[in-house]
């Protein structure tokens, strides 16, 4: 059930180059049940910025009634958001979309979580839940460069964590798939979120196993009405079938949609 609330900023800080960690508090947290869902934020009242910004949920703390988001400042909307101080409120619509299934794997099974850049955050809540269930998790996190890197320690606490940077300033030089090539583990399922070329590469590398892929797209309404964020359905020769990233996704089964 989608709710709306003016939520209070309890903490807000830059944790890597242009990457901010934002913690919000409010009753809406109770509705957040699935890792990989997102919220639609109105960063200030008024007309500029006008539209909401879709931001994925990074972790949920039900006891504290708080949830955390990590976002990258990449335009005017996120710039304005980054200037909002603790104590201020932002208007939240959510939770939206369908997240990663945290019951797909059983205790003792092996999960591979692959994140790229600002696609890393939703994997954090997922990983916590999988670990809580006794699933073995391995993380591969990709960043452009070391100064972009975040949450390395947090992921390491949950399981084996490999880092790839495009420029080689940290971990393996190259992409997440270069790390994947070197791994000997055979995952029972993979979970991934990041830029489209990475998702494509991951899907084709793990063709034989089931995966769950979180897509990103520019959105309008965030609730499935405006058809801004559609993608094609895999294997549909007519080219007319579609899924909405906001309300059918953002997480899809591997092979379900055209990345």
């Amino acid at each position, binding site marked *: 059930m989608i709710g709306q609330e003016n939520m209070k900023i309890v903490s807000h800080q830059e944790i890597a180059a242009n990457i901010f960690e934002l913690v919000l508090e409010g009753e809406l947290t109770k509705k957040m049940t699935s890792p990989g869902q997102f919220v639609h934020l109105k960063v200030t009242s008024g007309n500029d910025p006008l539209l909401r910004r879709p931001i994925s949920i990074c972790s949920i703390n039900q006891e504290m009634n708080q949830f955390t988001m990590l976002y990258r400042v990449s335009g005017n909307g996120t710039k304005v958001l980054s200037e909002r101080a603790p104590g201020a409120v932002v208007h939240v619509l959510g939770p939206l979309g369908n997240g990663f299934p945290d019951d797909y794997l059983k205790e003792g099974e092996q999960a591979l979580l692959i994140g790229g850049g600002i696609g890393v955050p939703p994997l954090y809540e997922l990983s916590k839940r999988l670990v809580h269930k006794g699933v073995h998790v391995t993380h591969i996190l990709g960043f452009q460069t070391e100064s972009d890197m975040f949450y390395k320690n947090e992921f390491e606490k949950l399981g084996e964590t490999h880092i790839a940077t495009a420029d080689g300033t940290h971990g393996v030089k190259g992409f997440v798939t270069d790390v994947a090539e070197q791994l000997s583990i055979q995952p029972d399922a993979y979970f991934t979120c990041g830029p489209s070329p990475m998702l494509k590469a991951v899907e084709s590398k793990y063709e034989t196993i089931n995966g769950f892929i979180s897509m990103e797209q520019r959105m309008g309404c965030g609730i499935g009405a405006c058809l801004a964020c559609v993608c094609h359905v895999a294997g549909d020769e007519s080219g*007319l079938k579609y899924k909405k990233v906001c309300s059918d996704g953002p997480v899809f089964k591997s092979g379900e949609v055209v990345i």
Partner: protein
Amino acid sequence: MSRLQVELPGLTLKNPVMPASGCFGFGKEYSQFYDLSLLGAIMVKATTREVRFGNPTPRVAETSSGMLNAIGLQNPGLDHVLQHELKWLEQYDVPVIANVAGSTIEDYEQVAEAISKAPNVHALEINISCPNVKEGGIAFGTHPDTARELTEKVKRVSSVPVYIKLSPNVSSITEMAYAVEEGGADGLSMINTLLGMRLDSRTGKPVIANKTGGLSGPAIKPVALRMVYEVSQKTTLPIIAMGGVSDEMDVIDFISAGASAVAVGTANFVDPLVCPEIIKNLNNILEEWEIEHIHDLRGRSWKDIGEAAYHRS
């Protein structure tokens, strides 16, 4: 009679507020947030004869106090709209204004004839102003003769009153209004989006895959208001106005400019509850101002103010 109730060709509206076509799908998504029967009417998503996928993504981009979109008339096609979407909307006590689009005059005729027979479709909105498709759409909305011909043909086959949706992307919107009035239109809806674009400053390339898109939101309100002000003085056709409406004062402004009812577009994306909010606030403000009926304000921007209260229509 309620101070908000409005009578228009084909339509008895509980209030003059309705979601604009393309911003509300066929209502399902917004029914999670409120009872759609609260609305004056619903202008549903454009329907074409065949199913359309629309344009490649990205399809939207934010601009200063506005947004660009180039969805490209994505819709499930006439048959599906009739059998599923309009059928589903029958559970609500709300008149539907069906938005009709096509690539050829025959397309428009075929969709208009069939969709106007649906029991809850009380009027048609003929979309001759979509800026985001290569064929049809705006091609019919920028030449007065073509617009007149299309209006005549659609009028001939439609079972309900016909409103023509005008484009602002013309040198004289009044000429277009005259043309469709001559063609037999029962009303106007105006304005569709303004053709615009945004570039990625770093790469220099358009942000939207379609390169250009339609500009909407508060940024276009002054343009829409001016056009309603002009056209309402030159034609007797009732006008359903849209263009950046976000609150009750925007509704009052458009009514003051000469509109009879108002549609809310982009604002639905910002606040899914905006339409019922506007309706509630509109009633409250009229009560506070001691205005007996919303139409007492109609056209007061250009009418003799002393007479305004006596000329309800």
